[in-house]
């Protein structure tokens, strides 16, 4: 039974992440009075790309060739290291908050390297922008997650999601503040509005798309898939750390089924919020982005301060 649950946990992120992208695109289309593509379109896109030939620049080094595998692998490892539908898995090897955050950073590091590797101007500024944003987002992310860790007293993510006491009146305000901080970082790290426009064709405005501009075929499929995984990971973290309801606490089929359904509902709500944001506002000017990320940092710092006062 445990092996089965572990397999479920392992494939959950890569299996469901394209669906998230499809749902966001569908919501955006609906809000623009368009029919839009099917929510399963991202699966078909990945399938199509996996069957395409690829072109690799003669100037590319091993970084360019291996980066997609490294980046994709990091998302799979993290997918197994965060609470998704079951909190009893207690992964003590990689389930630590800091391990997860910095494994993600490893992926970003290789993504930025791959962007610069071919020497194209677009990849260069894409990487430069990505690093600017990641560096500024890191503080907000760490502090937001620390808020949850502090209120429970551990940095193991499974234990945090197991506690389910964050929204108790004692920590209510700090949890909400930290969640807002976290949500801003989610948008920044996954390349959504108002930081980046995943649907743009304007090469000069791109961040994430500029870094993967030189990729094609199978490696592009992995890059796109990894980006979707990253979104799913952030959404799951937000859903299970800040609102840890419905997650399965024991090895019980019914609890696990409910856990999966509730996870999907929570992630769907986050997708809907992202879709609505992308339909109702314009992208921010690049130099306004640090302001937003500083806001995230301050909100999380406030949340930590509140918790400290309560604990003392």
């Amino acid at each position, binding site marked *: 039974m445990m092996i089965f649950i572990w397999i479920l946990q392992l494939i959950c992120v890569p299996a469901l992440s394209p669906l998230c992208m499809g749902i966001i695109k569908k919501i955006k289309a609906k809000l623009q009075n368009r029919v839009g593509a099917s929510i399963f379109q991202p699966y078909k896109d990945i399938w199509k790309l996996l069957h395409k030939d690829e072109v690799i620049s003669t100037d590319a080094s091993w970084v360019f060739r291996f980066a997609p595998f490294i980046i994709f692998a990091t998302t799979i490892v993290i997918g197994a290291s965060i609470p998704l539908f079951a909190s009893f898995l207690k992964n003590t090897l990689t389930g630590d908050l800091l391990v997860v955050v910095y494994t993600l950073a490893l992926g970003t590091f290789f993504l930025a390297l791959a962007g610069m590797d071919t020497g194209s101007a677009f990849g260069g500024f894409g990487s430069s*922008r990505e690093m600017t944003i990641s560096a500024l987002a890191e503080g907000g992310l760490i502090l937001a997650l620390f808020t949850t860790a502090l209120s429970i007293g551990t940095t193991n993510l499974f234990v945090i999601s197991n506690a389910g006491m964050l929204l108790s009146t004692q920590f209510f305000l700090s949890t909400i503040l930290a969640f807002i901080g976290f949500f801003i970082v989610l948008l920044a790290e996954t390349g959504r509005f108002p930081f980046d426009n995943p649907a743009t064709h304007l090469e000069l405005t791109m961040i994430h798309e500029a870094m993967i501009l030189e990729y094609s075929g199978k490696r592009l499929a992995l890059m796109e898939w990894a980006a979707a995984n990253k979104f799913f990971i952030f959404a799951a973290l937000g859903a299970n750390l800040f609102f840890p309801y419905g997650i399965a606490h024991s090895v019980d089929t019914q609890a696990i089924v409910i856990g999966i359904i509730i996870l999907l509902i929570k992630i769907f709500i986050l997708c809907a919020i992202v879709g609505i944001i992308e339909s109702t506002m314009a992208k921010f000017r690049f130099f306004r982005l640090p302001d937003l990320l500083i806001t995230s940092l301050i909100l999380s710092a406030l949340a930590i301060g509140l918790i400290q006062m309560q604990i003392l």
Partner: protein
Amino acid sequence: MNIEKIKQYFSGKEKLTIYENVVIFEVSVSNILAFASDLRNNKNLQLKFITATDERKENGCFKIWYVFGIPHEHGFIIPFIELKNTEQFPSLSPLIHNAWNYERKIKTFFGLDPVGHQDSRGIILHENWPTDIYPLRKDFDWNNRPQEASGTYQFQKVDGEGIYEIPVGPIHAGIIEPGHFRFSVAGEEIVLLESRLGFTHKGSEKLFETLALNEKIRLSEKISGDSSFSHSLAFCQALEQLSDTIPPKRATYLRVIYAELERLANHFGDIGAMMLDTGFNFGGAHSARLREMIMQINERLTGNRFLRGINVCGGISKDIENREKEKLSEELTSILKDFNEIIHIAENSSSLLNRLKGTGELSLETIIEHSATGIVAKAVGITDDARVDFPYAAYDELELDKIAIEQSGDAYARFYVRIKEVYASIKIIKDALKILPDGLICAKNISPFKKNAVAISVVEGWRGEILYFVTTDADGIIERVAPRDPSFINWSLLGHAGVHNVVPDFPLINKSFNLSYTGNDL
């Protein structure tokens, strides 16, 4: 044109030749600089266009024509110089800046050297074109492909620590025309932006010399496809001047209606595209929908979405029936209602306004120096509009609201000029439909063209002023057609608008201009 009124521009010694609204006369090569700068600086006339003609066979000389417009008189003064036994002429560009690119073009295409010009690089033709073959000379063999050359093009260079160059294009990620942009950037800030065009050069000016008359009109529709109607209108009006044809009243009203429909379609498209470029998807999607509605109206009325094949010499080929009149008016009312809602929502989006305001600002001085035209000029408060200054078709009988202007000169101002023009266009179409006179839509007899004549026709296309310069030879056959799309002027401003902005804002600035590549490259 009132001859008495334009007398003030001459000393009285010149031998004037007058055609309809055009006054031509020779000025000696040594006098031209003083004469031209006097017209511009002391008499406040606009230098509209400079071009050359190769008349070596007939008169043994090249001629260079300096077209000045007299607003509200609907007249043009065209001093020309004759270059006999020389291929050099004095450059006007140190005195009048907007002569810059016209002179470069004369140099590239006629091989006449503007002495004193600061920029010796060619324009439009690329390094693979031999530098000693001049395609607009009459003895150029247009049917044969010249040997491929391999020259170099020197981009402007910025030196300094941390400056790097971003080459963009000519192939872009979106479905747009090809053009190369060279950014010199410090961090994200643009220090220098140079555009390199000419990728869509098709030899249109040479084609105008070789095609039959009907095909010339069809060709004018393709100078810039999104302005098909305005371009062919400008060309047909020039032909009508040359043949002393007066198009019937009904035709002139219908021309106004079609021209404004074209303006509407393009403005809706641009307003939407600007919102889309900022990521404001809602506005982008709905403006694109409105544009499509206009395109479908165009197709229903004329059988062509781009209003091609409508203009003919002497009038137009497609009438609007009475029952269509009502329907069109109703449709415009409902489009206006939707448009109002979209703009209302856009105005309430602070993130959209934040992106538009202060982006790609241009100062009044820069605009005046380059004699910018159309939306770009209106966005700094210049009230030039060919529909008012050089009224054509039925525009002098229709009440044009105030010319839409803004003051701030940024992307927001260009966005808003378009919005105001949409309202004005809808009003003009409705007014024109109300008082649409009965009668023919095309003049019956077209007399042969005047001999050795010159005609100038201007039309306010949706981008700005379109100008056609047409000459005939001693047999009354069209010898040279020089179209000037507003893009040719405004491209030189894009670099100025880009400087000091961040690179990710450039696509928005470019879109707020939305210039034609093909109209520039010809």
